[in-house]
């Protein structure tokens, strides 16, 4: 069975292509995400165990968020609002995570996507982890972090 990280990357590429008409490429880390990035997290909890599971954190640069909303909804950029962009990013995280569960064959309970403001120091540290996925989507950066909920292996 492919690892969770491999399945996550596959789900991201597939969903971005089919849902947003965008083609992400893996990129080398390019420093710390800017403060204006929008972050959405979702948790996956082991069904059988009370404590195990994972947390996925998705960081979207503002230009990527706008492009995803425009492509997803067929809107003009001038019609976008912050609410529309946020809702689109939540939907993206929801669909990527659902597809991840399908691909990895694990029995995990999926939570609901939530916007959050990360601690910049924590983001810097986590962005350097081997389970961090750095992406460039039409030159707009995106960072996806796969984190164990209770210090377990990924």
């Amino acid at each position, binding site marked *: 069975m492919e690892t969770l990280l491999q399945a996550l990357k596959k789900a991201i590429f597939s969903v971005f292509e089919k849902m947003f*008409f965008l083609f992400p490429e893996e990129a080398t880390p390019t420093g710390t995400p800017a403060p204006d990035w929008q972050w959405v997290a979702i948790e996956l909890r082991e069904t059988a165990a009370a404590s195990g599971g994972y947390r996925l954190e998705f960081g979207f640069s503002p230009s990527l968020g706008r492009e995803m909303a425009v492509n997803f*909804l*067929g809107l003009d950029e001038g019609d976008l609002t912050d609410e529309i962009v946020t809702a689109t990013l939540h939907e993206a995280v929801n669909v990527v995570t659902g597809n991840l569960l399908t691909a990895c064959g694990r029995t995990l309970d999926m939570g609901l996507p939530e916007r959050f403001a990360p601690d910049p120091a924590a983001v810097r540290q986590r962005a350097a982890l081997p389970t961090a996925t750095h992406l460039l989507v039409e030159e707009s950066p995106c960072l996806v972090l796969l984190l164990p909920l209770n210090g377990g292996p990924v």
Partner: protein
Amino acid sequence: MPYGILVVDDSSSALMMYRKIIEVSGIPVRELTTARNGQEALQQLALHSIDLILTDLHMPVMDGLQLLEHLAAEPKWRPIPVIMITSEGRSEAVERSKALGAAGVLQKPFTPEEVRRVMLDCLGVQDHGNTASSTEKGDF
């Protein structure tokens, strides 16, 4: 015959997307109603004449499976075809949806054409047009 359609999803952007897909589908619509969860959907069903329900599986307050259970328990709502929409392709969720009476299942991500086809199938309408199949980026 124009149809009353109820779309249930907690994501406002998903609701906008479904509205656009339905607009370009060529399916005649009498009224398009939306709800943010299963509980709101039950309230809308009491107020509107609905011929087809598209519902997300994964929602707060009352999810798609719980909504199906309520519909199955109410004789006047039981005949309404329900399309369950899920981002998970896990067989448990799909099988449970079907067991509770879902007429169709759509897995995200999907194309507008896939949505149109399943809607027509659930409405028992023969497919004469192909409007949504030409939908491309930014061109709903």
